[in-house]
């Protein structure tokens, strides 16, 4: 009987602790994080062999934190690091996620255009500004558009699988 009591007490305590510990991330943020993570696997950067891919996130703290969490949990399975905040140097980023005012987006985008940086945003007119991948809403789903003209100005190699799934501009 003592075993049963011990077991139920242990279960009660662990469940109670876990409720207190509960934390939530909106699904939209998770999908964006998963997209950025998947882009690391379907895009080739020149001269990046063996080095960790750097994902930079501006203007979306929850996305940055989620990616940091993912990077730490990957345990070396996929080597990427995350920098989030406002002081970002696009030259150090392989993927640059931009979120914020049009002016901030334009400034960083212009700096990134001269680099082999995969620029991503959910800004509505991101492609028109010269961004490479735009995340957009489509009937309750989040999909992505690839701006081939912007890609052609870099040395990035985007896999056919990614192109197949994207809306092409």
């Amino acid at each position, binding site marked *: 009987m003592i*075993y*049963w009591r011990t*077991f139920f007490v*242990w*279960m009660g305590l*662990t*469940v109670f*602790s*876990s*409720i207190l*510990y*509960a*934390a*939530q*991330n*909106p*699904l*939209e943020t*998770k*999908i964006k*994080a*998963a*997209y950025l*993570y*998947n882009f690391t*696997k*379907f895009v080739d950067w020149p001269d990046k062999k063996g080095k*960790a891919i750097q994902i930079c996130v501006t203007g979306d703290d929850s996305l940055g934190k*989620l990616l940091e*969490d*993912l*990077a*730490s*949990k*990957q*345990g*070396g*399975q*996929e*080597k*990427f*690091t995350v920098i989030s905040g406002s002081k970002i140097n696009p030259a150090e980023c392989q993927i640059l996620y931009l979120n914020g005012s049009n002016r901030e987006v334009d400034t960083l985008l212009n700096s990134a255009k001269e680099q082999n940086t995969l620029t991503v945003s959910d800004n509505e007119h991101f492609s028109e500004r010269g961004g490479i991948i735009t995340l957009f809403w489509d009937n*309750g*789903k*989040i*999909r*992505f558009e690839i701006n081939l003209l912007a890609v052609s100005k870099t040395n990035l190699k985007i896999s056919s*699988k*990614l192109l197949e*799934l994207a809306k092409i501009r």
Partner: protein
Amino acid sequence: MLLSRITSFFVVAFYPLTLLSAQSPNPITKGYLELLPIDKFVDALSLEELSEVIVTDTKIAQSVHSVTQNIQVIDQTEFERLGKNRRNLAELLQYTSGQFVNILSRNDANWGSYAGLGAKYNTYMLDGLPMDSFVDAMSLDPWAFERVEVQKGPASILYSNYMSMDFAGNEAPLAGTTNFILKDKIDRQMSRLQLGIGSYSTQNARAYHQDKKGDLSYFVGANLEKSNYTQYGEALSWLQTVNNPDYQKTKLYGKMAYDVSPNQKVSLFFHHTDHTGDTGRVYRDFDHRYETLNLKYNAKLSDALELQIQGGLRDYTRQFVNDNYPIDLSYTNTDHYRQTIVPVDATLNYKHGDGNVLTLGTDAQWNHFKSYRTDALLAISSQNDVKARSNGLFLQEKVQLGEWIVRGGVRYNHIRHDYTLLGGVTPEDKEASWFHTLWNIGARWNMSPTFSWYANSGTSFMTPSAKQVGGTITNPLTDSGQLSNASLQSEFGMGNDIGFEWHANEHLQYGMRFFYNKIKDAIVDSVIKTSPSQSQSFNAGQTVARGVELDMKHRVEETWEYFANFTYTNTHVEESQHSDSDGAAIPFVPNYVANIGITTLLPWEVTSSGYIQYVGKYYDSTSKSSRSEFGNYPLINAKLQKNILRNSEYSINALVELNNIADRRYVMPWGFIDPGFNAYASVLVTF
């Protein structure tokens, strides 16, 4: 008594629900995916699936209801939670409704039941190709698998019988199938190392590495376990030991998959196991070798046509040394068994209309089973030499009509046995063959996006194995094993089920399934003696197994989830010729099994999982006068996992498993007894 236990079970299972409604600030109407931790989230969804996730709260993110059978999926995350993933695949299914898994010992096959029938009515498959639910389950390493799909209900059209002549003999998918799916999607380099120690001087080391080089992806792995183990036989039983029963198990495995073109893929999986040791007496050594191969070719011929061709090899070599126990411990003889089975399968799928699939194919198997004995003077005497082969042709059409999915199929099957030697003598009947045409139908009604009904019905048959006909015993007075029964007939059965699946919301699932399985001339194994241990198979007239499975699964928060299930089974044998068996329950089937499991994510990256199982009453024989009663015991297992270090280069986790916490040394058939409480601790490094 039983009613009060059922009531108690569901009070315990549903109690957290009331807690949730009272305390949780989070509405449970958001998406199920939303509650997955980010690492599990990216693992769960491919790039294609990401763009199909419906984010709005009004629909379920994943609602694939396109098969008529109920399928339960156990993935790697659950393997890890269960903890007991090093020794036998059947233990991964221990807490699944409808199943009863009796873990006899680390050196023996597990035994149990499925949907009210013996475990042999649920075929095990490796990527859709049959394998042995006893031998391969002891052999294969769970790190090779991506997931397990437990398909409930009759499935004898697409999947053939397994022709094994050893252990329980043939296996047929009358009550369901369990498909172990090998890892296939490898898109990154990853390595794992695990070192552990546990009770009975158990030492375990595992290694795994996967990578992708261009169009070639592969994984390789190894597993070594040594232990002094402990007494696992009842006092004075044939399993009584004088020393600790040492064992060593070594596994090597790997898979290579090559994308020949965007529409063609070929893969090869191999697995080798060496299992050596003794059962605790001087002349009770064993030496087993198991080889398993799967070769697979997939081709997408057009948007509508897909071809899959598979072939495999299952090669089992087993050797047992026997002594003169209980008279003395002197050497008497050594038994050698060799079984080689080659299954092949070719299946063509034609997609047409809106979600309809026509499947046609053919499969075959070849089996050669040989056994011989060497005595103290090294004289060799052949015991069994049997060949078997089967051929099958199958056709199935699945049609989607709005919210209805309807499936129907037929299979033509031919099985032939050639007996050169049975039990050391040349039999009078040197061959036997069976032709059967089987059918299977099923339907699912997706009544709403969250509620589905399903029903399935189908026939199956099973031939007696050579071991069941010829036995494995030369001297019935002293030998342990299987007694012969030359008058065995094949059995023919029908399986039926009906049930529903209800996603009450995206976090909470309920299920209920009724099954009714009937077998004519059922071949039943009964324990005749326990010292020496002897079983015999016989046709038990008609057997009927009916029951109900209740399931619930609830992911309450990102940090805790639980499941509960209950299986009630009522079985009986109708045997007008033998009053002693008439009305008896089918052996090894408990009248109920209840399971509860809770997993919680605690602060400081500690994960805690606890499982309670309660097994009802069951017997070891259909003989009402001589059968023994077993069961009526609880089993409590737990696992704790703590992340020690994690960065972008590697992670280190510490794991502790506590098995049979209540230290219940329950007795099992054939004189086995559970050794009681044991623990295991390990460190897992991923990089």
